[in-house]
């Protein structure tokens, strides 16, 4: 245990690690501690019929978020499996939280009016300021903006105590529930697909169909394979590495004069696939829960048509500039 703390402090005092990276790690620590709070709050909540499973889920997520960098990959992997298992066995559920009384928020609105936009916009403005004027990155800016918003809210209204924020945080995050881990889980599935050579197998079969040297056919296949693979994997980043090596280079990029531009556009062709897949949970499924929609595919239903149109536009654009 002592050695572990030493390794953390060594990392934080290492001058070769940038300040932005350190602050981001600090932000993950705060996120992990807040998630850990949700775990213990649920454990002590006797009205939650799933309190033990809920505790295990949020505690494991909290540990991986806060200390993941300093834990061995294998132990992280086990913690993630424990998280997943408690979700799969349906042992994670929201406990009791104090919801917002509409009469209260109406009263506060009459008191603050448009001033409430100040803490609301502070997150975005802080992210912008950090991205433009510092080297710390927008994520650290978001973290600072949240801190700023909390301070402003506490000054505006004495009712906003730390316990109020933690209560409302617990309410919001348990509403999303186990879906919180899905984005990271999907990225990991992509990594496992790549490691296992799933991409090589696909490239092999594509090679049997595409005539080598026919750049026009290759380009169309490249541009369509990206969204298709992204739909399966839920992550265009995972798809681009596999498809560029398996299809893009052998059938297209080595023959054309502007390979960098086409390689970049392949990524955004993949994004058209991201808009169409439930595998991209962070964008398409988590919002369904956050907005309390009835239809699990409610977001995708409003995205697939524009995605197809933008894909066609990109294919034509690729032919023009290749």
């Amino acid at each position, binding site marked *: 245990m002592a050695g572990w703390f030493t390794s953390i402090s060594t990392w934080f005092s290492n001058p070769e690690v940038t300040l932005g990276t350190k602050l981001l790690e600090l932000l993950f620590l705060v996120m992990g501690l807040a998630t850990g709070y949700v775990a213990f709050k649920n454990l002590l909540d006797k009205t939650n019929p799933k309190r033990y499973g809920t505790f295990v889920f949020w505690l494991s997520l909290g540990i*991986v978020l806060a200390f993941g960098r300093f834990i061995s990959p294998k132990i992280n992997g086990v913690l993630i499996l424990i998280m997943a298992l408690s979700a799969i066995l349906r042992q994670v559920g929201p406990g009791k939280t104090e919801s917002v009384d509409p009469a209260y928020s109406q009263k506060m609105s009459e008191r603050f009016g448009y001033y409430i936009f100040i803490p609301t916009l502070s997150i975005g403005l802080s992210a912008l300021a950090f991205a433009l004027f510092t080297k710390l990155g927008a994520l650290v800016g*978001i973290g600072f903006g949240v801190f700023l918003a909390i301070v402003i809210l506490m000054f505006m209204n004495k009712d906003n105590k730390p316990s109020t924020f933690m209560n409302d945080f617990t309410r919001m995050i348990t509403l999303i529930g186990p879906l919180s881990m899905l984005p990271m889980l999907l990225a990991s599935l992509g990594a496992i697909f790549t490691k296992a050579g799933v991409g090589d197998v696909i490239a092999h079969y594509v090679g049997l169909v595409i005539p080598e040297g026919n750049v026009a056919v290759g380009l169309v296949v490249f541009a369509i394979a990206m969204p298709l693979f992204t739909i399966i994997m839920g992550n265009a980043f995972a798809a681009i590495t596999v498809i560029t090596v398996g299809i893009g280079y052998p059938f297209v990029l080595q023959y054309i004069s502007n390979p960098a531009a086409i390689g970049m556009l392949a990524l955004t062709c993949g994004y058209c696939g991201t808009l169409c897949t439930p595998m991209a949970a962070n964008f398409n499924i988590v919002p369904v829960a956050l907005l309390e929609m009835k239809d699990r595919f409610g977001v995708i239903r409003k995205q697939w048509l524009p995605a197809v149109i933008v894909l066609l536009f990109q294919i034509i654009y690729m032919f023009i500039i290749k």
Partner: protein
Amino acid sequence: MIKLLGVLIVILGFALKLDSILIIIAAMVVTALVGGLGVNGMLETLGTSFVANRGMAIFIITLLVTGTLERNGLKEAAAKLIGKVKSASAASVISAYAVMRLIFAAFNVSFGGVAGFVRPVVMPMSIGAIKSKGLEPNLEHVEAIKGHAAGAENVTWFFGQVLFVGGSGALLVQSTLKNLGIESDLVSLAKVQIPVAIFATITYIVYTLISDRKYMQKYYGDKAAPAEVKEA
């Protein structure tokens, strides 16, 4: 061929509407076993990749204030603001948001995503726009607006973020191409995306305007008709 078993599990799993987390874990285990990674290889890849992608969990930190902002009258203030814009419709609120988000995405800046902005600001403004016409929002219409708001959020974010010089997408493409012996610079990679970003945003706005007009006629019929005539 057997290596594609995990891909098959993912496709079938989602088609059969099984639990999302169950599908992914099953696909992971099967792919790791048939792909020769073994249990150890799977755990290590899973742990490393999950930790490396913690940035995807940044929405968790914004939830620290989302609920409390709502408690302090944010929804009411947004509804009040939109009440002042008489001609606004739900679609025009979403369109304005789409343009704003595209511009900020180019600076790699998000307003807090669905949790931080769409739910507490865009949605109440859109609903407020319907109410400002003296109409009672139809539930199916509200469901569609939620879909469009999240859709505008995603489309403008995806295609706007690649305009950011040094964004993670371009960095990944650059390193992938470099392994293949193709050199590229980040500014050119961002520039090539400008026409796509503009086209995608306009496409989404037009799509939203057209479908919202259809919903207005379908659900409010006669009551919405006079406004339609005036616009024409």
